[in-house]
């Protein structure tokens, strides 16, 4: 089974075998991050541009470290300090970046579909690092790797995803990835945060009661309430949200005793997750971050292999 995707635009386009290969490749790369000398020459001479038009610490850092550990040259540009503020269009920015001959552009953008738009217009590989409320493929893949590490499998797992499903690109990518790998997904949030028809995405059940959603779950994934993305229309108050949809030491007991607690970060402590749970023994939140580097190394490696085959 060889990888055929020149771009990583979303999980939606990926087959089960693609996901499997990415996870296995990431698994092999993990060891590098534990060495004294955390660098291999695999992508020597490749140039990777991290174009982040939206705020990010974790993902940008993770992609940058992933590229550097594979010996690629990584360069970062961010929206606030680029020509975008002078009114340049996305396409012009991308064409100008392309003129400097990068091999991969990793892009985060506030608008859904921005990576697809670029993939049709530039010659190099595009990796989506989060586009609007659409997809965040690398996050879903690191989530799956973390689940597989702790549970030994993905198929058959009961995974509860709780929070603002409507605005969450993480949720969307996770739903695609989990259902494709045979996990059972439960989505939970207040009615205003559940997009109608989401259950059509596959093996997905929708709940408005958190207690029902997390009962006997193997994995509980809490999503961040995206304070910057919404007005007060979605929820009356954060305190009320925390009471009905926050994970705390009491309701966490409804999940299986060996359930793992995940969060894509950054956490709003005291809102969607209480500190006692976030720092509790079941949390694997920092494992997710650690796996993030390995998963992104795998994506850069696989995409770059496809690209070099095409130019031969």
């Amino acid at each position, binding site marked *: 089974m*060889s*990888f055929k995707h020149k771009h990583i635009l979303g999980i939606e386009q990926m087959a089960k075998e693609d996901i499997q*290969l990415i996870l*296995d*490749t990431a*698994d*092999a*790369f993990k*060891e*590098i991050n534990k*060495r*004294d*000398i955390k*660098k*291999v*020459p*695999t992508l020597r001479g490749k140039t990777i541009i991290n174009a982040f038009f939206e705020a990010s610490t974790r993902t940008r850092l993770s992609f940058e470290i992933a590229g550097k550990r*594979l010996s690629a040259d990584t360069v970062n540009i961010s929206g606030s300090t680029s020509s975008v503020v002078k009114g340049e269009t996305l396409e012009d920015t991308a064409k100008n970046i392309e003129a400097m001959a990068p091999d991969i552009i990793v892009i985060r953008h506030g608008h859904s579909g921005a990576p697809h738009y670029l993939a049709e217009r530039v010659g190099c590989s595009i990796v989506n690092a989060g586009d609007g409320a659409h997809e965040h493929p690398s996050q879903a893949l690191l989530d799956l790797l973390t689940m597989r590490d702790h549970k030994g499998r993905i198929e058959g797992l009961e995974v509860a995803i709780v929070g603002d499903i409507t605005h969450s690109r993480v949720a969307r990518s996770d739903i695609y990835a989990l259902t494709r790998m045979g996990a059972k997904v439960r989505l939970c949030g207040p009615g205003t945060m559940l997009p109608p028809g989401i259950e059509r995405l596959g093996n997905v059940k929708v709940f408005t009661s958190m207690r029902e959603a997390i009962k006997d779950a193997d994995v509980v994934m809490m999503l961040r309430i995206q304070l910057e993305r919404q007005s007060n229309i979605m929820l009356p108050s954060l305190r009320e949200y925390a009471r009905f949809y926050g994970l705390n030491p009491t309701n966490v007991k409804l999940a299986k005793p060996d359930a793992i607690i995940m969060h894509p970060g950054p956490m709003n402590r005291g809102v969607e997750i209480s500190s006692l749970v976030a720092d509790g023994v079941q949390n694997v939140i920092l494992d997710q971050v650690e796996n993030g580097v390995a998963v992104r190394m*795998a994506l850069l*490696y*696989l995409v*770059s*292999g*496809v690209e*070099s*085959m095409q130019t*031969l």
Partner: protein
Amino acid sequence: MVKAETAILDKAGIARAITRIAHEILEHNKGCKNLALIGIRTGGDHLAALLQARIKDIEGVIVPLGTVDITMYRDDLAARGNLPIGKTDIPFPLDGKHVVLIDDVLYTGRTIRSAMDALMDFGRPSTIQLAVLIDRGHRELPIRADYVGRNVPTAREEDVAVVFSQNQSPVEVKLVKP
């Protein structure tokens, strides 16, 4: 057209070669102090496990065993596209060790170059020695083996295949003519 195959070593022949190499390694290193075995995936890792067992039979000592996957260090990655990356597992420090690298077939020497680069990223071994089951010639780099099971003169078009059983023990070495 059916490919012509010639058996070079059978199961017993392989076992004898491994036993002799084990003795040579112990003789050369004056025992197994600071000795470590690292097999190159895939093939060399199975042979390394066999060597470890043979050294235990002879000296009664279990020497540290590791495996290295050289895909990340290949010099032809760009031309090969994305090859699957196997796991490297070296669960002991290499500093000061006498490392014996083990591969099944020595050919151009490029795999060994990659493996040595990989080892250097893990630490600074005192020495790196090379043990191979088959040396088929055609070196493209200044590399030679310290321990050889069998020298087999070959043509470049030919292929040397080491066949492993389900439980990863070598059963046969054959020369495949195109």
